[in-house]
């Protein structure tokens, strides 16, 4: 284990285009170990794409990723990077992801969902995988739902299982892609509560979200993305309360327009 506070994941000059639309226009970002980064921005700003490029679920058009000081992939023509499948699998085993739509495996129970990564990717013995999976389910408050299939769980419960599934890999970096955006409003709280509880582990986390209040309390650093670029990067207090850019201010105003 390296010293706390060193750079765990670095993104250099990241570009991503879908067809002729350039979604990310050159992102440079150093993520330090233990940081909790909330990524804000209006839809289409590229925030989800950035997150998905960080574990190469989306193949960057240009630029490179450096995990723990090691560049991922080999440079190819035009500033692109070529990735081998085995290398991507190793990267993704270390950079976990929680999806907006949960994406639990429907044919497996909650426990089996959480066991799957350690069992089939890390090659852990079954008994051990089962034990740790149970522990992770308890951690997200679902120890009693181990044998339930996803179809029998509420959205909030499904997302908590998905968080346990990602945690079971003991990832160095955990990515959350709008984890509460497809939940009924009354279920948002339980999921945010679980994510907030993870703070005490000191795990590095990046969270794309529209929950400004949560971002304020949870994050150690906030990025504001606009049209494929990082427009603002600083502590929550500064970015949310005294943003430098007019764009950020207008974005934030939309969230505070209606109050009671």
């Amino acid at each position, binding site marked *: 284990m390296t010293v706390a506070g060193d750079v765990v994941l670095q993104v250099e000059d990241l570009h991503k285009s879908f067809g002729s639309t350039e979604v990310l226009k050159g992102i440079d970002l150093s993520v330090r170990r233990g940081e909790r980064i909330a990524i804000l921005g209006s839809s289409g700003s590229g925030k989800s794409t950035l997150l998905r490029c960080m574990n190469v679920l989306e193949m960057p058009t240009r630029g490179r990723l450096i995990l723990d000081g090691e560049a991922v992939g080999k440079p190819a023509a035009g500033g692109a990077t070529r990735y081998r499948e085995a290398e991507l699998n190793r990267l993704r085993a270390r950079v976990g992801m929680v999806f907006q739509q949960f*994406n639990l*495996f429907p044919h497996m129970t909650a426990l089996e969902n959480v066991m799957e990564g350690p069992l089939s*990717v890390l090659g852990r013995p079954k008994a051990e995988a089962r034990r740790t999976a149970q522990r992770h389910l308890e951690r997200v408050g679902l120890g009693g739902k181990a044998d339930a299939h996803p179809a029998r769980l509420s959205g909030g419960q499904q997302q908590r299982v998905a968080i346990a599934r990602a945690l079971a890999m003991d990832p160095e970096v955990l990515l959350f892609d709008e984890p509460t955006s497809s939940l009924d409003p009354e279920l948002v709280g339980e999921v945010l509560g679980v994510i907030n509880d993870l703070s005490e582990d000191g795990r590095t986390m990046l969270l794309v979200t529209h929950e400004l209040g949560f971002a304020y309390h949870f994050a150690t650093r906030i990025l504001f993305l606009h049209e494929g670029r990082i427009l603002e990067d600083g502590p929550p207090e500064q970015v949310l309360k005294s943003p430098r850019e007019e764009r950020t201010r207008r974005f934030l105003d939309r969230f505070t327009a209606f109050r009671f």
Partner: protein
Amino acid sequence: MPTITMPELQFGEVFANIDLLLEACGLTLALWAVALAAGLSGGLLVGLARLSPRRWIAWPARGYVELFRNTPVLVQLIWFYYALPVVSGIQLPAFAAAALALSLNASAYCAEIYRGGIQSVAAGQWEAGRALGMGRLRLLRRIILPLAVRRMVPAFTNRAVELAKNTSVASIITVHELMYTARLFSSQNYIPMETFTVVAMIYFLLIYPFTLASYALERHFAAGRA
């Protein structure tokens, strides 16, 4: 007023020789089993090849599927039995030629079932597996295929039932299976109607338990989802 005399149905004659027909079921079942097993396994490989992003893998697979789906299975059997020796000098025994042709035919159909089934699995499942660091093959085996196969059971059942009846085409190239034996028997005894009625019943009795088993499998999968 002329009276039409109905020929007397002679089922007694057929049932007296039912052992002949029942023995022939052995080859029918053997052909069915071989072609079905080959179709389910070969079809998976061809189906995966069809889905490959590499053209040099996907296109030959597609060519194979189109060739076998768009020509009569009867011609395919005749071809493997009569034409293959001329082209390659390899004379297959009748059973082997029939088994090969039916297997290749079933693989082509099953490949399309696999392809459709795999494509029907939500992209999120692939992403969730990839995000855990699962390789393509492991992901297919652990996540995608188990999900896809559940949806493919009705289509496979359909294909398997069709295939069971297609084995009768092997009678054309002298495989002594049920249909061949029935044709021989009926032409020797001049009782085609009775013979083929009984043969239809035998096919039904062979195939229906399989259909029932597939319904049970569907129910089993449906229960697992809850």
